[in-house]
């Protein structure tokens, strides 16, 4: 028997039992739709994390205190206080003066808290940095000016605010520049407002921040002498690896580390963060996908169940077909095609519903859920496989029926 005839017979059998066919399909529809949605959401959020990271500057290099796992305390979780204070002013100065591959470098000491102006207040983070911060993070001062080296050496109580902070504190539309705000009871004079950068693709407000000389934050706010970290940018993205090697060399020398000692600091480039993020997101996508895949298996078992019922119900029909010349393989093919048709039709509907759901979810969360062609291809191959796999046993059972007994079956 040729394929066209088999498909015709299967279609006929399905249309004779539309409701049952649909309910069986429902399992596959739900399975495929959830796989497509989950993978699209996974891919979409991966994309948005990637773009928000590269928005931060793709040749950004972050230097953090503390070393690799060996330096962690017993249990591997808490690091000793001393290991978190390995970066000092001297390190910053060495990098500033000696490095050949760094275009800019800034210390980073941050403090979060309430900012108060008159009756208004808002909570934000104050970043203690050097003017290089602007270069590294591609920011600019719109109104007023950046603090100077002189203000850094004197630990001046001046700051630059982001537009969100400005809007929260200066509700009457007055010019923030020249005004004095309080942070941790310390008065800071606003000397500039940052040019707005808006939200990043993760939905974080990039204008909700305050910049101040790092010396001011160190001495007057946190009362520390070490640096929480440093950020730098290479003279060009292609020199990132050289820059990292150079920083490592300078810091190891400054810290008087022996060749056998491991680093007491960590350097991460955007590249590495991107690839780490990428693998984390891929894992997440895989996890979401396999959870959804389980529902596809459940759908497949539904097909198997219904096909078994169908074979039993149609025993007499199978006997008749055999008596007029159907071979075992014709019967096998008939039921197999029926199962595959249920699963593929379910797959098509599932892909459409999944695409709609992914689109809606993307709109809700605020990123574009990306349906990649391979996920659709995967869904279809899984559907065909499901149809064949779960249709096989019932179809085999049908094909092995004894025609005489089948036709007598009541």
């Amino acid at each position, binding site marked *: 028997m040729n394929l066209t005839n088999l498909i015709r017979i299967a279609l006929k059998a399905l249309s004779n039992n539309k409701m049952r066919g649909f309910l069986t399909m429902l399992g596959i529809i739900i399975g495929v739709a959830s796989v497509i949605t989950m993978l699209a959401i996974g891919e979409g959020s991966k994309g948005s994390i990637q773009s928000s990271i590269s928005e931060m500057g793709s040749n950004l290099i972050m230097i953090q205190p503390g070393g690799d796992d060996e330096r962690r305390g017993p249990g591997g979780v808490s690091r000793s206080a001393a290991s978190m204070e390995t970066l000092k002013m001297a390190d910053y100065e060495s990098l500033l003066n000696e490095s050949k591959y760094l275009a800019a470098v800034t210390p980073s000491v941050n403090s979060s808290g309430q900012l108060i102006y008159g009756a208004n207040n808002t909570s934000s983070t104050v970043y203690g940095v050097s003017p290089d911060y602007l270069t590294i993070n591609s920011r600019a001062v719109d109104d007023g000016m950046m603090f100077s080296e002189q203000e850094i050496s004197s630990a001046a109580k001046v700051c630059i605010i982001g537009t969100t902070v400005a809007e929260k504190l200066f509700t009457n539309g007055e010019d923030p520049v020249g005004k004095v705000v309080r942070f941790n009871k310390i008065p800071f004079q606003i000397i500039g407002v940052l040019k707005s950068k808006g939200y990043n693709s993760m939905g974080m407000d990039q204008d909700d921040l305050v910049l101040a000389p790092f010396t001011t934050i160190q001495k007057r706010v946190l009362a520390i002498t070490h640096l929480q970290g440093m950020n730098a940018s290479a003279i060009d993205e292609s020199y990132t690896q050289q820059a990292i090697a150079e920083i490592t060399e300078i810091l190891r020398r400054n810290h008087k580390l022996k060749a056998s000692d491991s680093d007491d600091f960590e350097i991460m480039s955007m590249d590495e963060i991107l690839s780490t993020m990428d693998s984390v997101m891929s894992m997440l996508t895989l996890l979401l996908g396999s959870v959804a895949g389980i529902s596809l298996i459940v759908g497949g078992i539904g097909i198997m169940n219904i096909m078994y019922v169908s074979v039993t119900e149609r025993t007499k*029909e199978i006997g008749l077909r055999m008596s007029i*010349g159907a071979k075992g393989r014709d019967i096998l093919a008939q039921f197999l095609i029926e199962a595959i048709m249920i699963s593929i039709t379910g797959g098509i509907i599932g892909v459409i519903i999944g695409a709609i759901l992914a689109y809606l979810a993307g709109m809700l969360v605020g990123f574009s859920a990306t349906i990649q062609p391979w996920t659709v291809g995967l869904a279809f191959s899984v559907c065909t496989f499901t149809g064949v796999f779960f249709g096989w046993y019932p179809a085999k059972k049908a094909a092995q029926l004894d025609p005489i007994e089948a036709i007598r079956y009541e």
Partner: protein
Amino acid sequence: MKEIIRLENISRDFVMGEETVHALRNVSFTIHEGEFVTIMGTSGSGKSTLLNTLGCLDTPTGGEYYLDGVSVRTMGKNDRATLRNQKIGFVFQSYNLLAKTTAVENVELPLMYNSAYSASARKQKATKALIEVGLGDRLNHKSNQMSGGQMQRVAIARALVNDPAMILADEATGNLDTRTSYEILVLFQRLHAEGRTIIFVTHNPEIANYCSRNILLRDGRVVSDTMNNNIKSAAEVLAALPKNDD
């Protein structure tokens, strides 16, 4: 006349645990083209088993069976299926039509399993067979919209559609009332007159009168095999019967 069936010492044993049921014992006969044979006997005498053997649905445990000169006993499952598809037409007591399926689609079914026929050729042959059994005006009626007699006619058309070497009927009138039974007998007699070979299993002795030959089974043995030289006309009996009320 050409020999269509030759049975040589056919036996069929069913082994059921300790017991062995001898459904057929040393059955031998030949049937020629154009014969209308009834196989009779009481219930359990082996009629269905014999018919299943003739129809290549069952394989004998002993003896030789030649269909159109070909030995069936040594054939594989698939070859027997092809034989059923091309040489044999079955008519069952309970019609065995596909549900929710039109008359034409039901009759087309055997041709679906023969790749030599195109869709249009199938339809054409099915239509012709339905016209032959008097259902030219019921081509697209579904099986559940027809009476028992009409359903059996569709089943007969399905048995005719592949131009088989023989038609095998097992109690084909068993589910029908007297009048409809005679209508079906009239049809079989007409097919016989057209030269077709028909083997009709029944436990109703009356039917033997309308056939050319009568084989009687008892306990799996042929106890008599007689020619009927005085074939009665089913059409005449039908004309004498009171008409149905509908």
